[in-house]
């Protein structure tokens, strides 16, 4: 029979293997990223999605998010391009510690209200990649436009690839 200490040792060893796999996956993916690399996405914010966001982040909806004509608006916090989801590791075989990551900084500008149910087109581009204190970072700039090409919002996001630190 294996003692508690034995199980702890096995768990720790398994964890070390998982973390090594996660760091390897992050490093492999990081090496493929290039400044200037771009991506486009389109999205229609549905009322259900917006209400879920409001519930999740504890904001009153629709509250102030109504146009003068009474149309539902999208809270500004929802309008951005997700760096890790767009340019990160989406391989579901990679350990969870390698997927998504941590937001470290954001800079956003808003020019026009975004309406629920309207199509929004996102253009994003990698503007920097770097390694700092064991984390691999991705910086992305983006712009969100309506179907007429009018800019609704733009921003810059700094995000880590995964949330495991290289030793």
């Amino acid at each position, binding site marked *: 029979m294996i003692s508690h200490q034995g199980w702890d040792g096995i768990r720790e060893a398994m*964890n070390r293997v998982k973390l090594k796999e996660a760091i390897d996956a992050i490093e492999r993916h990081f090496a493929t990223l290039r400044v200037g690399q771009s991506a486009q996405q389109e999205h229609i914010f549905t009322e259900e999605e917006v209400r879920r966001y409001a519930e999740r982040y504890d*904001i009153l909806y629709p509250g*102030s998010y109504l146009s003068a004509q009474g149309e539902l608006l999208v809270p500004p*916090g929802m309008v951005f391009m997700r760096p890790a989801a767009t340019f990160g590791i989406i391989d579901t075989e990679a350990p969870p510690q390698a997927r998504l990551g941590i937001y470290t*900084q954001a800079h956003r500008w808003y020019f026009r209200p975004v309406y629920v149910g309207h199509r929004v087109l996102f253009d994003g581009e990698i503007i920097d990649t770097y390694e700092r204190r064991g984390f691999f970072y991705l910086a992305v700039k983006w712009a969100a436009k309506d179907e007429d090409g009018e800019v609704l919002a733009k921003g810059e996001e700094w995000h880590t690839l995964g*949330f495991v630190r290289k030793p």
Partner: protein
Amino acid sequence: MADGNVSNRLGHEITGAVKIAHMPPDAGAVHDDRLAKSAGLEGGYIVNEYHFAQLTEMLLEYFGPRWLTNGEIEVKYIAPLLDKDTFIPKARVIGEEPPGSGRLNLEIWCENQHGQKLAVGRASCLAPEG
């Protein structure tokens, strides 16, 4: 030179709605206590989108609809917000930028129940009407 609507607001301190943060049920790996600890973090923490949602909510309350067409916000996340922590968004009007533009410049931050700053940054927008 700043008009009355701007100069009257310089130095204003704003406190947004105080909330008790809660971990969403489908928060994802980095917010899972066990996975976060396995990666050497102190534990699962509330997604930083929460800070952003609350800060922009406070700014919309202050600036009104102008925030949706003129707002600018810059945030650096500096410390984790933990489940059941108190979350307090704050701002202070520090100037008009560029001078004479009617655009207010604010220092913004949020803190927990211990007074520890969780995120810091700045925001700007045309001064509220009236």
